[in-house]
């Protein structure tokens, strides 16, 4: 059971985080959501978010995004997306060899987790972040730059991991 007061204060949730996480938790508990459907829905959300950023004229200029390698560029794009959506507190993107990168999220700082924040009592994961980032970054880059390899998120202690292939 989630200690709601602790989660709200320690993770710095805003009302939208609370709504999002609890809403999806409820759908998950009814059996209407699973990681497979989250992946599909997150892609749709990415398209909407891209249109939102475009409408607000806050899409990043790729030529101005710092990064000497594609992985660095992706890291900075993730930083940009996270600044806007404020999804997670602590995270890192590390080289995983063979043109792969791994996104490491400190799960105790995630603000949108349907399980850790929303309290969904379900088996498996319900993480929208990897699929959302894959689609949104590819849309911002206007080409396929990132391909999600893992089917969702892998838990290792309090760390949530997702592997991506960096496409040439």
């Amino acid at each position: 059971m989630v200690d709601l007061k602790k989660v709200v204060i320690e993770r710095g949730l805003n009302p939208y985080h609370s709504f999002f996480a609890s809403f999806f938790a409820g759908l998950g508990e009814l059996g209407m959501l699973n990681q497979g459907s989250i992946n599909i829905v997150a892609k749709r959300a990415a398209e909407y978010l891209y249109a939102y950023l475009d409408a607000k004229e806050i899409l990043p200029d790729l030529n101005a995004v710092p990064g000497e390698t594609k992985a660095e560029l992706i890291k900075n794009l993730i930083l940009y997306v996270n600044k806007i959506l404020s999804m997670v507190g602590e995270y890192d993107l590390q080289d995983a060899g063979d043109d792969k990168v791994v996104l490491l999220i400190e799960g105790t700082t995630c603000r949108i987790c349907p399980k850790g924040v929303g309290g969904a009592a379900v088996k498996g994961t319900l993480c929208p972040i990897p699929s959302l980032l894959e689609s949104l970054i590819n849309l911002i880059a206007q080409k396929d730059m990132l391909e999600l390899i893992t089917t969702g998120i892998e838990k290792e202690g309090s760390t949530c991991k997702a592997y991506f292939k960096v496409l040439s």
Partner: protein
Amino acid sequence: MVPTISAQLDAILNDFERSVPHVQATAVVSTDGLVIASRLPKDVEEDRIGAMGAAILSISSRSGDELDRGEMTRVLIEGTNGYILIRSIGEFAILVALVEKEVRLGMLFYECKNCIEKLSEIL
């Protein structure tokens, strides 16, 4: 050489499709809605079949609990063009089959049970 799990699953699904006329497509999906193995037509989106199949079985199962119908044994959706049959394979996987209207349901259920037993040995 021992065939891979993927090859074994594919062979079992193939046997099932061959033993029951009018079975058009099959998939083994995790309860997370992620496809483990499939024999689907190219125009069918694998990800969607996985996500929807798992969600349908999950909702049906919860409905069965809530309405005191006991343990869910199978879900059969009947449409004007055919059926969708969904069954659980143990605790962590499900079988989804797309079937034409002309199928003999008794034969379908019998062979599906055999198929589930074979899949359970692997998964």
